[in-house]
């Protein structure tokens, strides 16, 4: 039974580990240098 529960822990670790890698690839960060307060797109 110990192997089963340690396997479960490994699986949980793998899920968050995969999340780290996935979120790192989620869009690449684009540092913005626009003027402060400048409108992005249509504004009223």
């Amino acid at each position, binding site marked *: *039974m*110990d192997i*089963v*529960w*340690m396997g*479960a*822990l490994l699986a*949980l*670790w793998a*899920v*968050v*580990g995969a*999340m*780290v*890698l996935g*979120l*790192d690839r*989620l*869009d*690449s*960060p*684009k*540092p*913005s*240098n*626009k003027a*402060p*307060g*400048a*409108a*992005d797109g*249509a*504004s*009223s």
Partner: protein
Amino acid sequence: MSSSAWGLLALFLVLLGVLAWPVGKFLAALCNERVPRWMQRIEAPLYKLAGTKPEQSMHWLRYAFALLAFNAIGAIFVYALQRLQAWLPLNPAGMAAVSPDSAFNTAVSFVANTNWQGYAGESTMSYLTQMLGLAVQNFFSAATGIAVAFALVRGFARRGDGKGLVGNFWADITRVTLWVLVPISFVLAVVFAGQGVIQNFDAYKEVSTLETTAFQQPKNGADGQPLKDDKGQPVMEDATTKTQTLAMGPVASQEAIKMLGTNGGGFFNANSAHPYENPTALVNLLQMLAIFLIPAALCFTFGHVVGDMRQGWAVLAAMTVMFVVAVIVITPAEQAGNPLLTPLGVDQIHGVLQAGGNMEGKEVRFGIDASSLFAAITTAASCGAVNGMHDSLTPLGGMVPLVLMQLGEVVFGGVGSGLYGMLIFAMLAVFIAGLMIGRTPEYLGKKIEVREMKLISIAILVTPILVLAGTAVAVIASAGKAGIANPGAHGFSEILYALTSAANNNGSAFAGLSANTPFYNGLLALAMWLGRFAMIVPVLAVAGALAAKKRLPVTSGTLPTHGPLFVSLLIGTVLLVGLLNYVPALALGPIVEHLVLWK
């Protein structure tokens, strides 16, 4: 609400403010990596041993993997300790090895700063397991939360190097543990011991009671689960006893970090309702202050590090307003008592000789005021320690702890997790404000763009999904329904509370639910692990993204994030986003129960 309840609340808030300020300032120095020389000399051998250089800042990805590795090793260690405790020293009561599923649940629970306890400490854990496994994780899980908060605050404070460096995880966890958690816990433990909290390695004491005690206990079947009659009520059997076993142990040292680290796992099953854990009114007050100390201090830390104290005050104000409202709801609900007892001639009126109101499940020593305040504090923060049984709160009174947890543990919240959770909501608030006025949202000079909003959405949605999906699975599965001792709305509330507590890393329980089964041990461990780390990962990703951005100067077009308007917007966002997810579930549980009780 009675004048004594108002007085206790006011005293608590004043003392909290006085104590949190210097702690917040010191935490800011640690966050800014300004550590005195003599401290560096003590730390140096530890870094050498670990093979790391504290001045080397990490990319968020490396920071996250270091954090995950550290916590995984902690979980394996706690699991192994429980499984091997029968053969290890400091086990005078001869505790057997903990069952695999319970050991797994407990290991995840303490690593995730939840401290959900499916077991009773005094009949399950050896002194070695309590000290080396559980108490050590109380320190490390708290330090992990503060480290993540540091990383996020640095993300706001840094001028933007394009690299996304958020600090050194090993340095953060070492400094927080060595210079904050250990010293304050030591002082608290000494004070607690002076007040009567026990601290020894003695064997359990068998004592004779003054008179024979007759009582009823639930009758268990062959499977160890409570038997139920045709109506679904538990089958009871008569029992008597003339002796009582007094559990002993090194309690004071564990009690201090249990509160300070918003861990909440009691040495004894009765937690802070046990006289050996919480013997006096002074200890009760100190325990409540210890729970909120670091979460409140971190608001000041935030203000210091970003160079604008008003920002820290704004976050603290939003937390305080929501907390005070919670106390104002729960205390009168408990003072109102139980209407079903009134026709039976039970006097529930508050007077000089009795606390009045609903005293079921409460310690007479603490009464309604201190029990209600404690319940609000322990669930506003992700502590989970209890000085009374939450299962016995009135339906409305019981809904307050549920709601406080469901808001995402951001009303002060856990050490570190409260601040980073609230800052996630603050970014969502400026995003909503940006949508209203048609400007790109920015917070503290950092633009909140598409990537950040995706990450924020993930961080906010993780816990509601875990709570609601987990509750749905538990009420459908026969293994889930088997644990219910109170059928109907209250039974549903117990399951909802368990999943809410687990996924939000609180750890308190409504009790009444037989949760020490493979089904609940597995399900709740899943909720605790993902509720902790699937939230931390996107928060660190946000920290990295913000650290890489340039900090823009404040102009006339910048939304002020320190005034009453923003505080109101922040509270509105927390209530709207945090609470709306749960309204249908609350309607099926405590709201139905309240309407039935007062019809």
